[in-house]
């Protein structure tokens, strides 16, 4: 599958169906992007599990930290990987030992690892790379528009009034997929540069 860009249907289906999300690399510091995303997804009704071996015994927004994916003790739908690319392969090794396997492995903004993606996909796991689930949820629901961001969606329907803890509708019509033509161009170029130097 092409990971330079994703169409909205792919991302929408993931965000509409996963319920339990384990975040590897969740930080207790409230200025780290992982904290932002953890908090936002918890507010939108996802069952969030923070994974960080250095924080065991503490909690993140009332959810106890777990040392590793293998110690969760119940099935998870999605692993959100908040670690840099060099750590991804060892996390994939662990993901592939889980039973049942998660449905989705999501790597955060700036993280891309094509070899890891190929292994996950061969095991039937959907992969998203170099995207943020908070941004994508905010975009597809258009909530991110409050910040002047181009949601790349349109709707002539009256939206529900957002309240805390509510799942927003992600079913707006798409404007050609999540990323702009210019962003796609840059992603392709960066990936080409990386492969050329590799």
């Amino acid at each position, binding site marked *: 599958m092409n990971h330079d860009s994703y169409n909205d249907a792919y991302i929408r289906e993931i965000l509409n169906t996963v319920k339990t999300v384990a975040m590897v690399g969740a930080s207790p510091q*409230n200025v780290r992007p992982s904290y*932002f995303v953890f908090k936002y997804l918890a507010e939108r009704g996802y069952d969030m599990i923070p994974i960080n071996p250095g924080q065991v015994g503490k909690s993140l927004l009332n959810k106890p930290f777990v040392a590793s994916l293998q110690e969760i003790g119940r099935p998870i739908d999605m692993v959100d990987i908040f670690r840099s690319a060099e750590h991804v392969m060892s996390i994939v090794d662990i993901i592939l030992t889980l039973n049942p396997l998660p449905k989705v492995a999501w790597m955060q903004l700036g993280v891309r690892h094509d070899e890891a993606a190929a292994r996950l996909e061969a095991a039937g796991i959907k992969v998203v790379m170099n995207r943020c689930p908070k941004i994508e949820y905010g975009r597809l629901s258009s909530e991110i*528009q*409050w910040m002047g*961001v181009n949601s790349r969606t349109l709707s002539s329907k009256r939206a529900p009034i957002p309240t805390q803890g509510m799942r927003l509708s992600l079913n707006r019509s798409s*404007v050609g997929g999540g990323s702009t033509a*210019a962003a796609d161009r840059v992603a392709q170029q960066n990936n080409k540069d990386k492969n050329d130097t590799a």
Partner: protein
Amino acid sequence: MNDRIPGFGTLAVHAGAQPDPTTGARATPIYQTTSFVFNDADHAASLFGLQSFGNIYTRITNPTTAVLEERVAALEGGTAALAVASGHAAQLVAFQQLLQPGDEFIASRKLYGGSINQFSHAFRSFGWNVVWADPDDIPSFERAVTNKTKAIFIESIANPAGSITDIEAVAAVARKAGVPLIVDNTLATPYLIKPIDHGADIVVHSLTKFLGGHGNSLGGIIVDAGTFDWSKDGKYPVLSEPRPEYHGIKLQETFGNFAFAIACRVLGLRDLGPALSPFNAFLIQTGIETLPLRMQRHSDNAKAVAEWLSAHPKVAAVNYSGLSDNRYHALARKYAPKGAGAVFTFSLKGGYDAGVNLVSNLKLFSHLANVGDTRSLVIHPASTTHSQLDDEAKTRSGAGPDVVRLSVGIEDKEDLIADLEQALNA
């Protein structure tokens, strides 16, 4: 697999707007309020910490203004936008994220006179040093690059002379220098030219002109193309380093390819303060709904008027890139195939006095210092918008003493030509 991409006209009407969740109002309501209540202390803290999407105070975000922002971002093909009080405020806020005192930026010599003033005086007083380059001589941009250069700034269609800048050639210089290209797209609007498609990293507008389009509201906007990597070499610490005012957040790491627009909002607009009124945002976004129709008509009328003027015995020269004998015609056909815009200059054989007479005898054209109104406008730049430049700079920016500038409106072209004819013969 691919999602459908709506056309420009559809985006001009719909992007960013949706029926109001509370009332069902279909037109975007004017949220004429300074502030927004918090659900609880935790909600307030997450908004202030940038952890949640939402509104705090209209200096930073406003739901009416947000519709305008998303709409212009969508029309330009950018990732996000920030609307501010004027075109000049947009330039101030955009540059403030990029330059530290002692830094340089390269700007085209052919710019709106007010921008030349802003760069030469106000910006110099902040220690942001402009270095001028000639858009008709692309290597002059390359020669101007130093290790202090932080950005390159051009106008897509330059005010007042309507000349077209070779955006792709300047973008190549910017890429090589490792700095963002900023394009002022005011006179073209995204209907005629989309600078991001040609390599711009940031687009700015005076919304006061064709986007608002009705001469009733000042406004400006900054569009982030999402194409520039701010963290690659430490040249843009505002975007790549921890921000002390937000307890150490790194903006590019947190916001990815719309980090520049967020920096402009949560640092620039928050601290400098030139917020757009929600009422102006409403008027401007209503104007944008008809942008494609107006812009085509503006351009078609301008071409008809320019053709008529070039055949007139009292006219010495017409500078309109939409005319086939113009030196910018090849660039116009490449960058603005639908039309070359509505602003151009011409000179009269009778010189300065004939220009002044023409302006005073016109009955339909309004004599004023603006462009991009539904109404046709006329001005003598040398004695008004460009009066603070010396003679050499006036001529270099296309505003010599014998030059008259038109901004052709959307009236019937026959009436505009008749008005020019009676004024030239008076």
